[in-house]
């Protein structure tokens, strides 16, 4: 599953950078298929559907943390990719994806600052990515759950559709960070509010297992991060479109 690993990998990556360069990012979308059950769900995004059908503005706010970005390459992180792909798919409407970073904040800390954060903003859709910081600090899962629950309620009251994104699959730190309680609780909150959960953890694990990406890689380069985020952007846009029950072909 990670047969290309080892000292040779460095050379391959180097060669890849020189030879393939920018082509890599574009090819990546094809090498990172996501099983359809990870991209579909029963919950709906009525406000997103309305915005697109009425040809208005689709204002998306990504409420994220460090793993919503790539340090030196903001535009190639998944929120940027999401914007590019959605604009491409729905040329007739205005699509804006903005990113609100909440680095090193637990769900509870983010929730308590939500009122201030949402002031003057009217997003159609809020994509809330959380869980990693809570897992690192091993916050009580019950507290985590009620914080996410409260946050989702607040966002819905502010008039937005909500999608939750769970933590990344990170095999290197698996022995150090215990993710399962946080993944379970996010799923529970999503079920309870009947909102879509973008299962980033399962998707990335799928890529790692199938050999699309070597997420064990100790590589210091930025290429892997860019490719993964590009694929996440693609998967997320498909997920949003599926949850809004839209057929993009009709919109063009």
């Amino acid at each position, binding site marked *: *599953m*990670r*047969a*290309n*690993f*080892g000292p040779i*990998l460095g050379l391959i990556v180097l060669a890849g950078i020189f030879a393939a360069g920018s082509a890599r990012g574009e090819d990546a979308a094809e090498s990172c298929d996501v099983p359809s*059950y*990870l991209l579909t769900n*029963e919950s709906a995004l009525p406000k997103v559907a309305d915005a697109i059908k009425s040809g208005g503005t689709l204002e998306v706010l990504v409420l994220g*943390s*460090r*793993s919503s970005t*790539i*340090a*030196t390459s903001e535009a190639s992180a998944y929120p940027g990719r999401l914007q590019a792909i959605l604009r491409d798919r729905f040329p007739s409407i205005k699509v804006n994806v903005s990113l609100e970073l909440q*680095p*090193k904040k637990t769900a509870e800390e983010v929730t308590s600052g939500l009122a201030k954060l949402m002031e003057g903003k009217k997003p159609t859709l809020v994509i809330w990515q959380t869980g*990693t*910081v809570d897992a*690192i*600090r*091993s*916050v*009580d*899962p*019950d507290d985590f*759950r009620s914080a996410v629950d409260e946050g989702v309620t607040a966002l819905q009251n502010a008039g937005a559709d909500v999608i939750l994104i769970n933590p*990344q699959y*990170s*095999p*290197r*730190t*698996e*022995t*150090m*960070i*215990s993710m399962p*309680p946080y993944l*379970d*609780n996010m*799923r*529970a909150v999503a*079920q*309870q509010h009947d909102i879509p959960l973008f299962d980033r953890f*399962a998707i990335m694990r799928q890529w790692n297992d199938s050999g699309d990406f*070597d*997420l*064990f*890689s*100790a*590589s*210091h*380069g*930025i290429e*892997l*991060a860019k490719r*993964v985020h590009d694929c996440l952007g693609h998967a997320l846009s498909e997920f949003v479109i599926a949850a809004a029950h839209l057929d993009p072909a009709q919109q063009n």
Partner: protein
Amino acid sequence: MTSIADRIAQPPVGTTDAIAPAAAAAAPAISFPAVGERELRLDLFRGLALWLIFIDHLPPNLLTWLTLRNYGFSDATEIFIFISGYTAAFVYGRAMEQAGFVVATARILRRAWQIYVAHVFLFTIFLAEISYVASSFENPLYSEEMGIMDFLKQPDVTIVQALLLRFRPVNMDVLPLYIVLMLFLPLILWLMRWKADVTLMLSVALYAITWKYDLYLTAYPNGYWAFNPLAWQLLFVFGAWCALGGARRMSAILSSPVTLWISAAYLFAAFCVTLTWYVPQLGHMLPHWLEQWMYPIDKTDLDVLRFAHFLALAALTVHFVPSNWPGLKSPWLRPLILCGQHSLEIFCLGVFLAFAGHFVLAEVGGGALLHFVISLSGILIMCAVAWVISWYKHAADKSAPRKGAGGNADMAGGG
């Protein structure tokens, strides 16, 4: 986590553990070993639990699909804590009867100290691993996850908190739980000798209060103990209660077909629910109300569904694996039994091997095959070390009679 018996406590125990040999033969339930014979089923299943814990601590691979937690609510931890309670009560209960409360308490504390030292040893290894990862791993994709290394900035606080058992990295939660349970063992045994049923009821009451008022032990830098001793004590005390005669009294209930069918039905239902975790396409088949009621199934506080799952498993196991089951003498199961007999050593080794295996996988890479080879060699190493320890104890303890699996000095319960 696991091992209970005090080495000095053993030789007298081995010769005097004659409790109701007739009951042992007649009742399919867990019962005391007959004279001179050790309850090999305890060793067998504790050994099995050790293997499963080791495999579960490695990154998921082929063998992971063989572990218990994929097929129901409870996992190897439940087996371990229960058997630990059982053997601890058995060994130290006897010691308390023979040598009195004070001496038995001293022996228990000595054992708790050994487990503590083992925990600190494992923590040192963990520290080495995490420091290495921190200094060598800078994948920009995971800069957020690297926040886990922040504690390295304050080694003084971290190490003191670790010594106080308040800072416990992932996979190192079991020994602290075990230490706490051992510290309370003298009290539990003292109460048990007074009135076993009342003790069990007190334990259930503590469990209920823990759930009702959400009691927990805090951890460092924040959070809580991943295995809440206030809840998990229920399994430990239940094990002790079984060892001190409860199992014998329950044997009629345990062997009744009604119990067996209920257990089987519950295990099947749990299996179906578990299936929806791994085959998410089936997720929608689960009624919404059931999900609302059931989730989350809490491991920290030993969810009642997990406890019930363990009970159902245990009921079926004691029925289908009677204590006179010939397979227990089979050379094929001998490695498992040996591992179970030296559980503290093998548990620690397992945690270490899981760290090491993870390290090899990360550094060398390689596919599913290497993964499989690492899991397998880990288990082989555990067996080999268990065999060496066993051999050494035979050789060192010349006065002990040398016969089969039962001849070992630390057999009667713990080792």
